[in-house]
């Protein structure tokens, strides 16, 4: 059985009287792509913030590689090898790919001068590792010239350079075309092949279904479903299940689908 990179046990988070998360269990194994789905307000963002250490949970336990961690923080999260690639991608678009990958941790030698060749070498290695290669750009290309999917590649390469074991992709395919989405999927598969893990968060259930090995559906601060790829037959199953969770027994014509969802559970 693959190593468990991180495990959240019974995590709750409340802001005053409002519960954002109520007892969430989530785990990610090495070399696994976990798809996290949920409507707006389901608690996905809070969960990401807890994983990246920006927000501290009100209660619950966090285990890194099987060992409980006390005093969870952004630094602890980084030490555990968790990197979040945010929706806005946080890239300096007028700079080269190399400058973005090494942003804040430049490879320097004599008196702080950049080791340009070493940086290129390292960047090429990272980019090849995630299949981020092409005839039309080099590590010297300006990020602003790249397409949306390719920019995700830069962000992922940067996360890997930061020794990430688990990369959290926050809606990486939102606002991307089909071809661009295919590029992101390509990177994700390569990252998985390299033995790293990905938590893939998305609105588009079809996208998540295409890429994830395991699905976690959240609803109103709770995990409504955890299912392996083998347990879910199609994206429609997931959609029906989510609709059923959102409107329990409410809308006519959905009962059959809801049963399928329960069977999956």
């Amino acid at each position, binding site marked *: 059985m693959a190593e468990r990179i991180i495990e959240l046990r019974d995590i709750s988070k409340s802001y005053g009287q409002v519960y954002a998360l109520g007892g969430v269990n989530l785990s990610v194994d090495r*070399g696994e792509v976990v798809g996290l789905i949920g409507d707006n307000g389901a608690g996905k963002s809070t969960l990401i913030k807890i994983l990246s250490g920006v927000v501290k949970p009100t209660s619950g336990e966090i285990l890194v590689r099987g060992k409980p961690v006390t005093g969870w923080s952004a630094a602890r999260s980084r030490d555990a090898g968790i990197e979040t690639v945010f929706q806005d991608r*946080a*890239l*300096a*678009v*007028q*700079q080269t790919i190399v*400058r973005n990958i*090494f*942003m*804040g*941790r*430049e490879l*320097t030698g004599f008196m*702080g*001068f*950049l080791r*340009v060749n070493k940086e290129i070498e390292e960047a*090429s290695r990272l980019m*090849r*590792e995630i*299949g*981020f*290669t*092409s*005839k*039309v*750009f*080099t*590590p*010297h290309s*300006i*990020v*602003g*010239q790249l397409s949306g999917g*390719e920019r995700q590649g830069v962000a992922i390469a*940067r996360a890997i350079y930061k020794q990430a074991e688990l990369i959290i992709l926050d809606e990486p395919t939102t606002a991307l075309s089909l*071809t661009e989405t*295919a*590029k992101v*999927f*390509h990177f994700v*598969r*390569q990252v*998985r*092949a*390299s*033995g790293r893990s990905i938590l893939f968060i998305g609105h588009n259930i079809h996208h998540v279904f295409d890429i994830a090995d395991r699905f976690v559906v959240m609803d109103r601060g709770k995990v409504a479903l955890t299912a392996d790829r083998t347990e879910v037959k199609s994206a429609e199953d997931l959609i029906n299940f989510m609709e059923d969770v959102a409107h329990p027994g409410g809308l006519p014509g959905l009962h059959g689908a809801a049963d399928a969802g329960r069977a999956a559970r």
Partner: protein
Amino acid sequence: MSKTMEPDLKSPLGGEAARTEWKHPSDHWLRGFVLDNRAALGTLVVFIVMMAAFLIANPTVFTTWYLYRSVLTTLPVALFVVVPLVFVVTCGEIDLSFPATMGFASWVFALVVQAGYDPFLGIAAAVLTGTLLGFLVGSLVVYGGLSSLIATLGMNFLLRGLIQIINEGKSTALTGLSDSWAYAIFSSQVWGFPVQIFWAFAFVVLSAMLYNRHRFGAQVRVVGDNPDSAQQMGIDVKRVRVKVFVFVGIGAAIAGTFSVMINFTWWPTAGDGYLLPVLASVFVGGTPTWGGIGTVAGGAIGAVTVSFIQTGVVAAGLSGFYVQFFNGLIIILSLLGHKWNQARYR
């Protein structure tokens, strides 16, 4: 699950991932060089066209060495501030306080020399003053959270006012300066060239390396490009911003000291005349106003261009009234050229 890097031949990016080398047309060194330096080269073209026009207008004057020597004497003063300003503008800020810093630092230099100390000590004191003033201005802008445009303008008036209050408009003559070692090293002539130009050239080259090949330059560009991202990646954005102002302070101190050494006299207005030509040089040089990118070499060529406009217009036989018009014309034409020459990526 394989742990090895199996090449994925069906890469949706259009290239075979298994390729071991990055190759595409712009890898040719000349093409790459032109693409990387298009702003600086554009500025060079503007300069060459302008000089050609002057040369055609008055061939006799423009082939005399004296004309060039006079420009080469004053140009270094501008270069020492234009180059650090490229860093400031790249960082997404502006510094209008450098004329007063020039005046203030050179005042300290004049005081030390007048008191009978070695001019080298005076230079050290001036650079220290410039560093401190740069730190003061930078801290005010960065930690005070003020607009650099207005805050540095205020600091320019404030510091200049301080100089005027204390000196009551009186200048300081430095008679012993011409016999000193410092003068021989920093302000004499070598093979008919004013020696300042060599120092300024070395400064430009060093700064260009700092800008393009050093962690400092890399972080300045990233901070100017996307400060939020830089912060997220662990760069101390405020510290980088303060550093660029300190750099301007140092440059302004050297510039002020050089200008005093040319004239053997310190005036309470020292540095004032450099505000607009220096700013114009930065933007004529091809550094855009929006931050993130810039060119040190372009800024230096821009300074040469701006320095030659005044001399050139008068030497070409036009009256002095034309100088401002040509100044403006060159600035506007350069900006139009750069606009066409470089795209802004978002």
